C-alpha cells in the first residue's frame, strides 16, 4: 500500500499566509505535465512495486490545468505504478475554477475526490487572506461540485483570522454542515516566517493573529462538529463516520509515498526526501535524468518521534505496543513514563496501551509530543 503526491506549483495569486512552493506566473506551464510524467518514470522504483491506494494532486492550484491535462497526468501515474481500482484520487481546487463545465469535464477523469479551498464564507476574511475568490464563489463552487456529482468532498476552512468573530466562525461551520460536506479540514491561521502575512503583520499593515481567539474557535469547532456527529480523527480533520481522507491519513500512519513535482516530499519508511523547491532547478534535474532532491535517513529515535508526533494527533492515538515492537521496550517505557505525567495533568488518556489526547490536550499537542520524544543517545532499558 502506498501513496502518490503530485505537486502543481502554480497559483493565479499567492495567498498571504501560504508557505507552499507555488508561483503566480505561467512560466514553463506547458512543460510541467510532461516533466511530471518524466519524473514518474525516473522514480518508478521508489515504491518498490507497492500498489497505490491514493493519488493526491495538490499545489499550488492544480485546477489551473484543464481536466484533460489532469487526466493525462493520472493516466501516466497509473502506467508507472500499479494502482488499486478503488484508489482515492483527489485533486485540490480553488472555488473560482469550479464552474459547471469544468466540473463536468473533471467528472469524466478518474478524479473521485475534490478538496475545495473555501477558507471562509465572508468576503472580509478572504480579503485578509488575499484569496482569489469571493464568498459568493465559495457557495457557488460547492453547489456546482455537488450538482456535478462529486459527493466525496472536502472543504478547507481557516479560523483565528483577525476579524473572524466567533459568530462568523459559527456561521462558516454551520454552512458546511448544511451542505452535508462529508469531510472538513479546519486550520488555525498560522503566520509562517517569511510569508507575506508575516511581513504585513510586522509592518503593522495587517492586524496580528490572536492566540486566544484561535484557541476559543478551535474549541467551538470541536464542539459543533461533535454535535453534528462528525469524527474528530485528526487535530485539523473531521469527517462523517468512516469517511477519512485516505491520502492524508496515510501520512499519519507511516505509509510510504512518493512525491512528484518541485518541492514534493517522499517517504519510504526509513528515509525522507524532498525535491528542490525551485521550478527551474527541478526541470533541469528531470531533463538531465538526475532528479534534484535532498534526502535524510531517519535514525530509530527520529522514526519513533515522527510516529509519536503524527499518531498522537489522531483519534487512533499512539500505540505503546507498536513502539515496543518497532523500537524496543526501553523506548516504550520512556514514552509511557512521560505520558503518565500528562495523564495526571488531564492532557492525555492512556487506555490499553493507547495514548490519546483529551479535548484540552488537543490544544497542546505539540508540547506534549515534544515531551514524549526520545533521543538516540539515550540507551534503551534492558528488556
Amino acid at each position: 500500500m502506498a501513496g502518490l503526491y503530485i505537486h502543481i506549483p502554480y497559483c493565479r495569486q499567492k495567498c498571504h499566509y501560504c508557505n507552499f512552493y507555488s508561483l503566480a506566473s505561467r512560466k514553463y506551464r506547458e512543460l510541467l505535465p510532461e516533466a511530471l510524467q518524466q519524473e514518474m518514470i525516473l522514480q518508478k522504483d521508489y515504491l518498490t512495486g507497492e500498489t497505490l491506494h491514493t493519488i493526491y494532486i495538490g499545489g499550488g492550484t492544480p485546477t489551473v490545468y484543464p481536466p484533460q491535462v489532469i487526466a493525462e497526468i493520472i493516466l501516466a501515474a497509473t502506467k508507472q505504478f500499479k494502482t488499486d481500482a478503488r484508489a482515492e484520487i483527489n485533486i485540490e481546487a480553488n472555488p473560482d475554477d469550479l464552474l459547471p463545465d469544468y466540473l463536468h469535464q473533471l467528472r469524466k477523469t478518474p478524479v473521485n475526490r475534490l478538496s475545495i479551498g473555501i477558507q471562509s464564507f465572508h468576503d472580509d476574511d478572504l480579503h485578509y487572506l488575499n484569496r482569489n475568490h469571493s464568498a459568493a464563489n465559495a457557495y457557488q463552487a460547492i453547489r456546482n461540485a455537488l450538482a456535478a456529482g462529486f459527493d466525496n468532498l472536502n472543504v478547507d476552512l481557516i479560523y483565528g483570522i483577525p476579524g473572524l468573530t466567533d459568530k462568523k466562525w459559527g456561521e462558516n461551520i454551520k454552512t458546511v454542515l448544511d451542505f452535508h460536506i462529508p469531510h472538513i479540514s479546519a486550520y488555525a491561521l498560522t503566520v509562517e516566517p517569511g510569508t507575506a502575512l508575516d511581513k504585513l503583520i510586522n509592518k503593522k499593515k495587517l492586524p496580528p493573529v490572536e492566540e486566544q481567539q484561535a484557541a476559543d474557535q478551535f474549541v467551538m469547532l470541536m464542539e459543533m462538529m461533535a454535535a453534528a456527529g462528525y469524527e474528530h480523527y485528526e487535530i485539523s480533520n473531521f469527517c462523517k463516520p468512516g469517511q477519512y481522507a485516505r491520502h492524508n491519513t496515510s501520512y499519519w500512519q507511516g505509509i510510504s509515498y512518493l512525491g512528484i513535482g518541485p518541492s514534493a516530499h517522499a517517504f519510504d519508511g526509513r528515509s525522507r526526501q524532498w525535491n528542490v523547491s525551485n521550478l527551474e532547478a527541478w526541470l533541469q534535474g528531470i531533463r538531465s535524468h538526475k532528479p534534484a532532491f535532498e534526502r535524510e535517513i531517519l535514525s530509530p529515535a527520529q522514526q519513533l518521534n515522527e510516529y509519536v508526533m503524527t499518531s498522537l494527533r489522531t483519534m487512533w492515538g499512539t500505540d505503546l505496543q507498536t513502539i515496543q515492537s518497532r523500537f524496543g521496550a526501553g523506548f516504550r517505557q520512556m514514552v509511557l513514563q512521560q505520558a503518565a505525567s500528562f495523564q495526571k495533568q488531564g492532557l492525555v488518556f492512556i487506555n490499553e496501551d493507547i495514548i490519546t489526547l483529551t479535548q484540552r490536550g488537543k490544544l497542546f499537542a505539540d508540547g506534549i509530543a515534544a515531551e514524549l520524544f526520545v533521543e538516540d543517545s539515550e540507551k534503551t532499558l534492558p528488556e
Partner: protein
Amino acid sequence: MKNIRNFCIIAHIDHGKSTLADRLLDLTHTIGERDKKEQVLDSMDLERERGITIKSHAIQMVYKTDDGVDYLFNLIDTPGHVDFSYEVSRSIAACEGALLIVDATQGIQAQTISNLYLAIDHNLEIIPVLNKMDLEAAMPEDVKDQIVDLIGCDRDDIIETSGKTGFGVERILEAIVERVPAPSGDPKAPLQALIFDSVYNSYRGIIAYFRIFNGTIRKNDFVKFVATGREYNADEIGVLCMGLQPRETMEAGDVGYIISGIKSSKEVKVGDTITHVDNPCGEMISGFENVKPMVFAGIYPVDADDYEELRNSMEKLQLNDASLTFEPESSAALGFGFRCGFLGLLHMEIVQERLDREFDMDVITTVPNVNYKAYTTKGEVIDVHNPSGMPGPNILEHVEEPMIQAHIISKSEYVGAIMNLCIDRRGELQNQVYLTSDRVEVSFMLPLAEIVFDFYDKLKSISRGYASFDYHITGYQPAKLVRLDILLNGEPVDALSTLIHHDNAYTFGRRMCEKLRELIPRQQFDVAIQAAIGAKIIARETVKALRKDVTAKCYGGDISRKRKLLEKQKKGKKRMRQVGNVEVPQSAFLAVLKLDS
C-alpha cells in the same frame, strides 16, 4: 648579552598586533612555511576568534642585520585586556623595549595608554609604530600628533607600517636593534629570574616562562621560587621558539622556560622570582603581587548529573589559568555548582566560553558580585561574594565596596553621554584632559560593582564603539547595599538574587522583571515575576499562560520540519530549570547580566 633584545608589544585590541607579530616572525624565518597559521601568537581558538590575546606568550627570533650580525630577539606578548593588567605589568618588567602599535585609522585608546604608562614606568624604550597605513581611512598626521604628545618622541621616530602588506616591517626590526638597549645584568651574580607567565602542558606539567636578570641557570640546578617558597629541580630549561628548545645553561638577559615537574598552576605565581637554593639572591624582583579575584559568580551545570564533570573541567581550566578560583556552592534553584572568582568580567566570559568549547560543558552562570567587605558589630571583617553570604542586619555594622579608577578615552562628541553614564553608575569625575582637539580622556572614580554588569557594552554603544576603557582597583568605600530577590510565582530564585546599591534597586528590579518576562516561555498557567527587597515587592510582571500549542497542518512535507522543530524545543526544555512549578531557561540566568541588550 649585547646581541639580545627583549621587547613586548603594546597595542589596543584590533590594532593589528598579532598580524604585525606574524610579520616579524616571517621576516626572521622563525616559522617554517608548514607551521604558518594566521596569528601564531594567539594560540587558543578563542583568542584567535576574538582577536584578543588572553594569556601572554613569548617567542624567540634570530635577526641577521645587513652587516651579518645575528641578534636574538625575545618577543614577549602581552594580554590585551583590563582584567589582566597585573600580568601585563610582569611581561613589561621582563623587557627593555616596547613596540607601541597604534592603528593609523583609530588613534590611541585608553588601554594602550595605561599599558604605555606601565612601560614608561619600567623605563622601557618605546618604539612607536603606526600600523594599518594601507587603509584609506588612515590619518597618519593626526595620530602622529597624538603619539608625539603622549611620549614626547621625535616625529621621525614613528615607523609607518602595514602588517597586512608587510610595508615598513623591516624598519621595525632595525629599530629594535638600534634603539632597544641590550639587557644588563651580571651572569656571575646569584640567580634572579622573573616569572612572567606559565602554561600547562598535559605531558610536561606546568611550564613557567622567565626572564633572567642576574646569574646563570643550568639544567638540573636546584631552584627555589621565592614567593611560594617551593623548591624544584630544573628538569629542563630552554628557549621558546616555535616549540620548546632545551638548553644546558642560560644566563642574565635570556628569556626562556623551565620545566620542573610542577603539577598545579597555583604553585607558579606570575611575578615570582626564581633563584638557586644554595646561593639565593638577596631580594626578589620587585612588583610581585598575589592577584585576587575581584568578581564572583556561581557556575552550575545545566544538567545536575554533570557536576563531577564540571569539577574536572574547572580543575583542568585552572591548570593554565591560575587566576581562576572556585569552591563548591549549592543553590535551591540550580543545585550543586561552584562559586568562582574572576579577575574581571571578561575573564568570567572567557572561562564560560572555554568551558563550553574545550570541555563541552553547558553551564548556567549567576549574577556576578564583587567582593564586598562586611563589618560586623563584633568588629569582624567578612569577605562577601555571594548574596547569601551577607551577615544578617542584626550583626551588620556596615558594608564596604571596591572602588576603581576608570580611564576612558573617546571622541569629544561622546563625552557628555559618557559622563552621564558614569554619573548614573555612581561615578565621580576626577579629571578631564584633551589629548588632541577632539580626543578626550576622562577619569572617574566608580564602584566596581557598577561596571560588572553591562557598563562596557553600554559605553561602546553610546560612543559608537569609539570609547576605550581601562581601570584599576583603588580601594574600598562604605556603600548602602540591599539584597534584591526575584520571585517566580512567589518562590524566591536564589540564583537571581543580587546585592545592589539601594538607589539602583528599584530600577534594577524593574528591568530584571521586564527582561525575565521576555525570556521565560509561556507555560500552561500565568507566571508572576516579582522583585523584592525583604518582604517588600518593588516590581512585578506576568507571563501570560499559553492558550494553544498545536500545529495546524501536519502532512507529508511538514513532518520532517515539524519533528526537527519539536526536537529542538525539547532540547531547549531539557536545559531549563524548574523553580517551583515554573520552567526557567538558562538564558534567563545569563540575560540579567546584560539587561539593556
